């Protein structure tokens, strides 16, 4: 394999959506410095929303394409579009739910019974960091080689580390960020080390060329080259960390708990989506010939993650920590989609499309749940279970929305979360992983305890006379939209799953034809 440089100019039109987000971020940097104080906040929020929505439109015009540029390092295929759309939805939702937080800062109930601002947050930097993180995650979704993939992951993660520490006067925020950062570096090193092994064995950074090389090396005795296997395992550890899979999840509760709540909402979705994008690119596209090895591995990790996440969530009384463990559990459910991949996947293989649909569903219901906490936290309450006491009588619509999110996370039909689990379970059964399907059902039953506990507290306990959260229009509207999406997208899920099917199918088919 010689040095085959492609000297044609890169086709930048394929990268429009990503470039829009990048340019938006740079504009935000300047706007932060120059826009006068009076319009400062509204302008920045507006620029962010316009940027993300514009990027989403640019993405939609790209759907159906299946192209690559920068010598294959950047891909514009169905997977890019689907994952980037999820990431942008999460970005828009984050901007909407964090607006009032940014205006008012984090407030705490003082000993004299008055609220005072504990942490004010500079909106400009917040939006810029969100922008970079989104850009990085979109880059992962579009990555065609190991370097781009790694840069995307790091870009996304570095911005998130800083965001975690944004409530800088609160110690837990700084502590969570520190842990997240240190462990993140540790995991990145492992990931990078795995990539070097893969490069060393296959001699290529390009995902399709790696697949092509591997397809020709199977000795046929059922055993794999140890160097290759080591590379694969290191990748699993690195990606597993980014996903928050057990036992690489330890940063999650501390970071989720410490970060400002809108940031928690963001980091529970976007870096996770980026990690799964990386997993699909790395394993399904590049290491497809080794799928017998990695599917078992993901299946075992999925089992451990689901069980651990759900069981430990029971013991949490801090709702943010509870949702952190719940997000670990959901990582487990999503991983089942990866584990259910059957080698030589065809368009009919439902595994990857079920995974994609799950991430989409998870985006809506999880950000929704965090949005409700943000809503309560406006007034210095909202982290602990007791803060939900009697919410149904003081803020009935918010209580209904929270109930919807909890029921959806639990998987109650006909909500979005039910359909997400349903498709994943079908994929698992199709792949003869009946034990994994059963585990999902049992784990969901366990999860009913801590999800319904919040509902019970909201409806059956008396409000205890704490200061009421003030309704803020943008946030309430955002919660409303997320709740409606949670209610309706499940019922009308078949067109979405069809799209996911086409796009993930296109990916695997493309991967194979390119590999031949």
């Amino acid at each position: 394999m010689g040095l085959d440089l492609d000297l044609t100019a890169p086709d930048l039109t394929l990268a429009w959506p990503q470039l829009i987000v990048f340019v938006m971020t740079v504009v935000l940097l300047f706007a932060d410095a120059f826009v006068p104080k009076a319009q400062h906040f509204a302008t920045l929020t507006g620029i962010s929303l316009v940027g993300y929505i514009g990027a989403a439109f640019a993405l939609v015009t790209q759907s159906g394409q299946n192209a690559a540029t920068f010598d294959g390092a950047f891909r514009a295929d169905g997977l890019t579009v689907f994952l980037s759309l999820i990431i942008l939805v999460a970005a828009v939702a984050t901007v909407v739910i964090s607006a009032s937080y940014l205006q008012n800062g984090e407030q705490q109930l003082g000993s004299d019974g008055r609220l005072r601002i504990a942490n004010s947050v500079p909106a400009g930097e917040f939006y810029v960091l969100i922008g970079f993180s989104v850009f990085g995650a979109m880059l992962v979704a579009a990555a065609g080689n190991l370097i781009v993939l790694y840069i995307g992951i790091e870009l996304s993660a570095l911005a998130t580390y800083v965001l975690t520490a944004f409530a800088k006067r609160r110690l837990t925020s700084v502590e969570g960020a520190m842990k997240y950062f240190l462990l993140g570096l540790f995991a990145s090193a492992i990931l990078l080390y795995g990539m070097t092994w893969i490069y060393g064995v296959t001699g290529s950074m390009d995902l399709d060329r790696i697949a092509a090389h591997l397809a020709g090396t199977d000795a046929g005795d059922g055993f794999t080259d140890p160097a290759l296997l080591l590379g694969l395992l290191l990748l699993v550890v690195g990606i597993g960390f980014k996903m928050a899979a057990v036992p690489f999840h330890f940063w999650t509760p501390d970071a989720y708990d410490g970060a400002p709540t809108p940031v928690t909402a963001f980091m529970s979705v976007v870096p996770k989506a980026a990690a799964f994008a990386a997993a699909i690119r790395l394993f399904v596209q590049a290491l497809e010939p080794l799928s017998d090895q990695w599917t078992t591995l993901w299946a075992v990790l999925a089992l451990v993650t689901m069980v651990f996440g759900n069981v430990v969530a029971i013991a949490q009384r801090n709702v943010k920590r509870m949702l952190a463990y719940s997000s670990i559990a959901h990582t487990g459910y999503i991983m089942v989609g990866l584990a259910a991949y059957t080698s030589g996947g065809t368009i009919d293989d439902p595994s990857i499309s079920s995974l994609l649909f799950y991430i989409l569903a998870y985006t809506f219901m999880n950000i929704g749940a965090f949005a409700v906490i943000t809503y309560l936290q406006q007034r210095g309450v909202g982290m602990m279970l007791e803060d939900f006491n009697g919410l149904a009588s003081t803020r009935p619509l918010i209580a209904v929305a929270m109930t919807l999110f909890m029921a959806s996370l639990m998987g109650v039909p006909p909500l979005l979360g039910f359909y997400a689990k349903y498709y994943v379970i079908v994929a698992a059964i199709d792949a003869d992983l009946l034990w994994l399907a059963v585990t999902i059902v049992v784990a969901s039953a366990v999860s009913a305890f801590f999800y319904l506990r919040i509902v019970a507290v909201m409806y059956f306990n008396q409000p205890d006379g704490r200061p009421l959260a003030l309704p803020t229009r943008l946030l309430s509207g955002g919660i409303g939209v997320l709740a409606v999406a949670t209610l309706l997208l499940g019922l009308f899920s078949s067109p979405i799953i069809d799209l996911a099917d086409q796009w993930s199918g296109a990916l695997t088919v493309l991967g194979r034809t390119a590999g031949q």
Partner: protein
Amino acid sequence: MADLLFLIPLIPLVASAVVLLFGRTVLGDRSAILSTAAVAVSWLLSVVVAVDIYRSEEAIAQTLFRWIPSGDFDVRVNLYADQLTAVMLLVVSTVGLLVHVYSIGYMRGDPGLYRFFAYLPLFVFSMLMLVLADNFLVMYVFWEAVGLCSYLLISYYFRRRSANNAAKKAFIVNRVGDLGFGLGIMFVFWTFGTVNFFGETGVFERVGEAGSTTITVIALLLFLGAMGKSAQFPLHTWLPDAMEGPTPVSALIHAATMVTAGIYLVARAQSIFLASETAMLIVASIGAFTAFMAATIALTQNDIKRVVAYSTLSQLGYMTLALGTGAWMAAIFHLVTHAFFKGLLFLGAGSVIHGMHDQQDIRAMGGLKKYMPVTYWTFLAAALANAGIIPLAGYWSKDEIILGAWISDYQPIGQIVSIVAIVSAFLTALYMFRLVFVVFHGRERFDPAVVHPHESPRVMTLPLVALAIPTVLIGFIGAPPEHGLYHRFVEPVFYDVEAEEAEAATYVVAQEGDPAPAGEAATAADAAGGDHSDGAYLPHEPSTAQIVSFGVISTVAAVGGLVLAWLIYFRGAISPVELGQRFRRLYDISYHKWYFDELYDGLIVRPLRSSAIFLWRVVDIDVIDAMVNGVAGGLAAVSQRLRQVQTGLVANYALAIALGMVVLVGVYLTAFSSLFR
């Protein structure tokens, strides 16, 4: 037009959702206007759709979305409107609209108003979806949804214990029927591999593929569902109790629409029922028995709404017996006329109750004619129609049922049920006019110092008048008998017109005395009509003599009942008390509703209750709860333990990641690589 079909159910649904969310806080009394307006739009669209179908003589279909894509089990939510659906749409939306208008007045000032006006359009939505469904599963969903709305509305006055009990009774008795319906659908899917009604692959086209036992089982299971919803013996006991709900609810749900869902189901699935003579026999017998039994009970009840409720049961029995004798069009015709006159009877009864300050006992009424003239005249019209007095609505449809049963292919059962129907018609006139005379004529038996009877407000009398018009006139869509506008409209649904023409051709050819082509034509007729060899799908043409003589017979029966009621309750020529004493046994049976409630209580409720207590105290608490609590306690303990893994020290976390990696690498390199080979 097909593109707008979905709006018909959607608009009431939206209204219901809006009222449910904002009714208590924002809308208040405006909820009533919003819901009524929504149903009015639905009604308008239904009329447009019906006219469209009438003009084009073709069914309208609209594909909405794929609901369950799961391997072979592919269920879509489609809307389908043919002539039968159009008739149902008109009935549901018309009566629905008038009941909404009436309720604005009837429910005024009720603190739970918004709940009422959230559930009522929800019911209209569910009922419209039920008749628009083009497969069994979607129909089943909305079958349950109307049941839910019925439950919610019966227990609307939830502070009243009896209302809660009635709601539970309705729900539980319907469970028996719905279980049958559910099993029937599973059988259908098992047999045909689909739950869709129509098309080449649909169930109705392929009935011939199944064995006769299978089809009989399917038909009987479906009919069990119909028996629950349409309150046929022995699942009839819930309907009279359901009168605990507000009167407009009784009019809309428990008289005009929901209870006819069972009739609609059997009519829709006619090809399944036609394929099984056993099923038809059972349907006809149960219908006839219900018609007769309910009529006898209605004779002695003293609660005005209960009399009307038993009358509903009896009329539903008429429809069922018509279905069982293959008189499909007559059954649906009676459904239509009954919806109007029975809706009117209930609304009239509601008006009486309203004017009498919530008094429902007819023994405390009397002489109300002069206080509430509008209510009286409209009630009288409905009573005449219900009694089947020519030329009001009920006469045409009831007469057609009696005649249809007499000349049907299913003999001797057809003639037996026909006679039962005539006897019941006599009883119908008797109990209807007992009610009219006791309530509106005679001595005023209330205390004028306490009760001041008054006519209801305009918003309530207007729907009465509006319903009185179809009550008087709607029968004429079925006149002349068997050849009315109604028959020409609905015919394509029930009878294969092509096969009929082929039959006619056979007849002509046979007349010309050439047997060979006649045979061919007959085969053609069979091929077009499916596997029914005896031509049961063709309408029997009654002769003019039959039409006239049956018209006379049913008129005599009805007028006879009327005259007897007049003699007893108006003239006082015969003392009702003495009659009751003379026929003590019969009176008791009727008064105690044939002891069905007591029978079920002894046979089912009590044994179930004691076994439930056993299961609860012993099996549940000592065994299952102990197990579940043990598991839960164990999980909580494990959770507390595992929680401590989260030490908060970064070094520990890094160690855990490293250990995890070492384990993974160790296991995998040993087991799957060629390293140690």
